[in-house]
């Protein structure tokens, strides 16, 4: 399996090449180079997947394959290795990433055509792909952290691609800092975990060897075990990347980046890194800190519901998709949170991974479709769209497929994965299941609201007729739509499960039927409200003004963040500190100087120029010293 190394390395070489030589290349060539390299990577990934899933099974369990080389030594036990860990989820992620990335690369040739910094764009895309691939094949948690940071930076660079646009710059900054803040949790979590277990290695951590955690046994902090804390902190890192409530604020803003970037990073790959992280460490979570898993489930559910509600009222199509992404990642988190480890208990895990897979495809499809629409109308606002079905037929159909998939309508892929999550959730807690079902309904509603507002509804005037995107953009759409269509029945449990053993999927029809029913009702409602131009939505908005505005404003979370950063950190901490530094600390230092000068001026009269005074001082000095020595 050594060649898998090349999968990761190729994008990096491409990045170096494009980054250093890009300026001298024609833009088109740069695009081709990037795409070609990705194509090789993708091909190798498929090869690897095929080879792995066909050969790696030993005794009914997929055996991971790994290679390592030492990168940095910390202590006797702790060292960072860089390497490749090939196991089912890694292979799955390789496939997802290379596929979506390839599609995005291809799509971007058309979408980014004529943009300034085209070469740079491709360099960054390659960098991102490299980082993401490195992340998923990480053999140890520190390697993951390394690539974790790298994807963060590539995301930053890509969100800020239009660096002359202040909004883009602000969004990129926000994205980076919020995730960085979460990464702090991740880092501390790593430090804690590694300190007590003495290893970073995933293989050792997830081996189920309880002796690793012996040292931490009994160490508690604020009533929870220290490993629990470590895992919770690590989850914070994942929550940041995966835009879990309340760390999701960066994701909607990140839509300022080019749309294909949103498709790649902020829909399909990077944002699921958190899910992947939890999945990677799942055995540890399950065995050492089940409480944290419950926490994860709750956070996932809250996020999911929250995002779905907000998505219902957004008017920027990319924002809607962004909230939809947040919501769907919430589903995945819930799936993991409710899952058990072995056998049928592991349904949630399997479902979550499956959903990750299908979601990557259809969400990328949605974003790329949105890109095609934006490409056509040069706007993100729903208000500027409507009635586009005539102009963009390919986009429309692929978009519809994706909408159906995400709404959970069989036989589209989303139905299968989501349904399993719901089943697992109901199995875990009916209440949570109900919430998630409701959220699924909301999902169907806002997706079709989106669909209708774009392609149906009232047609807006355009300066020039919108036209279908070029071939390079539509091919990816079609390809992804195809995957979305066919991915559903994939026997996913054969490949990716919590215990790496085979899992036989059987649909729970009560749950499935109910959810499909809910979805259909929601779609019907959306059709009613938005298919034609109608006053009902506005009326609803005015009658539930408070709720509507709050949801539109995303429940004021951004304002809260702004308040915390601007008012508290910037004005409340930094300014006083800077003032303190200049006036108190530095003032003290200057004070010494001033004091010396003052004293110097104050005593000048002492040197009066009168010789008699001098003599007097000599005499008194002598007497003083005498008295001092003799009597004191």
């Amino acid at each position, binding site marked *: 399996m050594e060649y898998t190394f090349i999968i990761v390395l190729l994008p990096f070489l491409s990045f170096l090449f494009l980054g250093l030589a890009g300026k001298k290349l024609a833009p088109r060539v740069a695009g081709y180079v990037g795409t070609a390299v990705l194509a090789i990577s993708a091909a190798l990934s498929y090869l690897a997947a095929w080879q792995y899933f066909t050969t790696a099974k030993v005794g009914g369990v997929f055996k991971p394959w790994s290679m390592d080389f030492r990168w940095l030594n910390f202590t006797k036990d702790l060292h960072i290795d860089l390497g490749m860990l090939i196991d089912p989820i890694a292979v799955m992620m390789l496939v997802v990433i290379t596929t979506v990335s390839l599609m995005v690369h291809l799509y971007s040739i058309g979408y980014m055509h004529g943009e300034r910094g085209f070469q740079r764009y491709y360099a960054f895309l390659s960098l991102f792909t490299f980082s993401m691939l490195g992340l998923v094949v990480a053999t140890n948690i520190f390697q993951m952290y390394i690539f974790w940071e790298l994807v963060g930076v590539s995301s930053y660079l890509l969100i800020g691609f239009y660096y002359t646009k202040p909004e883009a710059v602000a969004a990129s900054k926000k994205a980076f800092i919020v995730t960085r803040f979460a990464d702090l949790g991740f880092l501390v979590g790593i430090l804690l975990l590694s300190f007590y277990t003495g290893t970073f290695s995933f293989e050792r951590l997830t081996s189920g060897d309880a002796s690793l955690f012996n040292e931490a046994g009994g160490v508690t902090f604020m009533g929870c075990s220290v490993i629990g804390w470590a895992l919770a902190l690590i989850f914070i890192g994942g929550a940041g990347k995966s835009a879990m409530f309340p760390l999701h604020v960066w994701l909607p803003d990140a839509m300022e980046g080019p749309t294909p970037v949103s498709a790649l990073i902020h829909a399909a790959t990077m944002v699921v890194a958190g899910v992947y992280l939890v999945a990677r460490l799942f055995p540890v979570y399950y065995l050492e800190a089940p409480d944290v898993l419950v926490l994860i489930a709750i956070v996932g559910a809250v996020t999911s519901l929250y995002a779905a509600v907000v998505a219902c009222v957004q008017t920027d199509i990319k924002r809607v998709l962004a909230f939809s992404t947040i919501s769907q990642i919430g589903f995945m988190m819930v799936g993991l949170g409710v899952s058990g480890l072995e056998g049928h208990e592991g349904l949630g895990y399997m479902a979550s991974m499956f959903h990750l897979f299908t979601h990557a495809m259809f969400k990328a499809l949605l974003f790329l479709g949105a890109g095609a629409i934006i490409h056509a109308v040069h706007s993100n606002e729903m208000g500027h769209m409507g009635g586009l079905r005539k102009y963009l037929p390919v986009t429309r159909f692929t978009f519809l497929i994706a909408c159906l998939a995400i709404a959970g309508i069989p036989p589209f892929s989303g139905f299968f994965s989501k349904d399993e999550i719901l089943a697992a959730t109901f199995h875990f807690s009916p209440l949570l299941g109900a919430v998630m079902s409701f959220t699924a309904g909301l999902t169907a509603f806002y997706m079709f609201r989106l669909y209708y507002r774009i392609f149906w509804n009232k047609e807006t005037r355009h300066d020039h007729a919108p036209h279908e995107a070029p071939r390079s953009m539509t091919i990816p759409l079609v390809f992804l739509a195809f995957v979305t269509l066919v991915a559903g029945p994939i026997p996913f449990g054969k490949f990716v499960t919590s215990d790496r053993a085979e899992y036989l999927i059987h649909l729970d029809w009560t749950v499935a039927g109910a959810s499909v029913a809910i979805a259909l009702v929601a779609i019907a409602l959306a059709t009613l409200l938005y298919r034609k131009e109608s006053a009902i939505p506005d009326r609803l908005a005015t009658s539930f003004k408070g709720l509507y505005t709050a949801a539109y404003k995303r429940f004021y979370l951004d304002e809260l963040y702004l308040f915390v950063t601007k008012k508290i950190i910037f004005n409340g901490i930094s300014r006083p500190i800077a003032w303190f530094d200049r006036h108190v600390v530095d003032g003290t230092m200057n004070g010494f*100087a001033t004091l*010396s*000068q003052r*004293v*110097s*001026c104050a*005593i*000048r009269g*002492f*040197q009066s*120029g009168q*010789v008699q*005074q*001098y*003599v007097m*001082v*000599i*005499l*008194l*000095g*002598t007497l*003083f*010293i*005498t008295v*001092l*020595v*003799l009597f004191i």
Partner: protein
Amino acid sequence: MDYSSFIYLKEELSLIAVIVILLLYDIFGSKKSLTYFQPVACLLLVGHILLTCCPAPAVLAIFGDTPAVDQASAGVYPLFSGMYNLYPLGSIVKSILAVGTLLVLLQARGWLESENTVIRRGEFYVITLFTLLGMYFMIAAGNFLLFYIGLELASIPMATLIAFDKFRHKSAEAGAKYILTAVFASGLSLYGISLVYGTTGTLYFADIPAGVTGSPLQIMAFIFFFVGLAFKLSLVPFHQWTPDVYEGAPTPVTAYLSVISKGAAAFVLMAILCKVFGNLIEQWQAILFWVTIATITLANLFALRQQNLKRFFAYSSISQAGYIMLGVISGSALGVTSLIYYVLVYMFSNLAAFGVISIIERRSGKVTIDDYNGLYSTNPRLSVVMMIALFSLAGIPPFAGFFSKFFVFAAAVAEEYYWLVFIALLNTVISLYYYLRVVKAMFINKNETAIAGFRSDAYTRLSLVICCAGILLLGILSVVYGSIHHYSLGW
């Protein structure tokens, strides 16, 4: 009557010979021949220095007659039955002083050749050398009488040097201030000596320690005596004459006062404290502790504000004296080595600075720090010399001042004077500030009307080159310190 002892007074006798020759030359030389007065004087002094530098035993060996070495303190040859002590460290200090005097004389040439002073040129040389001779006797004295006469020989003619520019009121005023305070201080000192005599019954250094019992009167006597030397060293609170006199005196005389006179006094003070009042070590260490702190701190505080460079250097030299006291207070061999070394380095540094001040004052009449603004743009070499000197005074490596400061601190720390060294060290920061003020004026400040560029005379240049060489090499060549240390081992 055994007059053979005289032959061992090679330093003093050769200096007297130089003085006499110069005196006669000045009186009887024709006007034309007097134009060579300067070179002749300097050459004679060089000869004298060479003779001084020859190790005493080597010279003594010529006469084949080595006097008995005092066993109690190795290396000391008492002459005139103890009236006069011949010892290597003394000779080293004498030769250092002589070199310093030579440098001063080199720097003084330009000034002496000016119209007003040329007729008093001969006197300047003779009197300067007389004061030097006085210091020699101070250093070599083995008896308070000889010490006292030496002290007066070093200070009374000095007053005439200070008042040398007699038509300039400031010079005259400085002279008067100096002689009045000097006489007063020597009066106190004399009173102290009288009480020392009264309580010990002898004036011979060698015999006094036996009589020093530490009675209160004796301590008072000691303190009164101490005032005389503290005055010469300008330790606080006996320092107030210094700035006024330094400012008023002709610059070469200021240089001479600040270096030669001070260096001699420092060494003599240490010698007498250790050799004569060794029994009072607790008392004089306590005194020096506070006096040193006061000296360094107060002088630094005063120096902060000075504009006139000569006054500035007066305060600087007061604080330097404080640092010298760190060597004295230790009372150890390390201390005396450091002290001599410090004096040597200080001499080169201060004379370099005064050389620059002197030549600039002569060429432009300017002596304030502000006048030096932009000096580097017009007189780069002088500025660099000045900067090196200032850095050396501030104790910045690789200049010798760093080493000398380090050694005096080491000497004091060796005797566990941590707080004293701590305060002294903090004061180095203040002193660095004011030294940098001058550097700043020369290098950083801009000035449209900077002192015009000029070429200094060969004598000044020679002296500055010697000084700079000294500053640069003394630290790096450890042999100087090593040899001083070699002779101080018997301390």
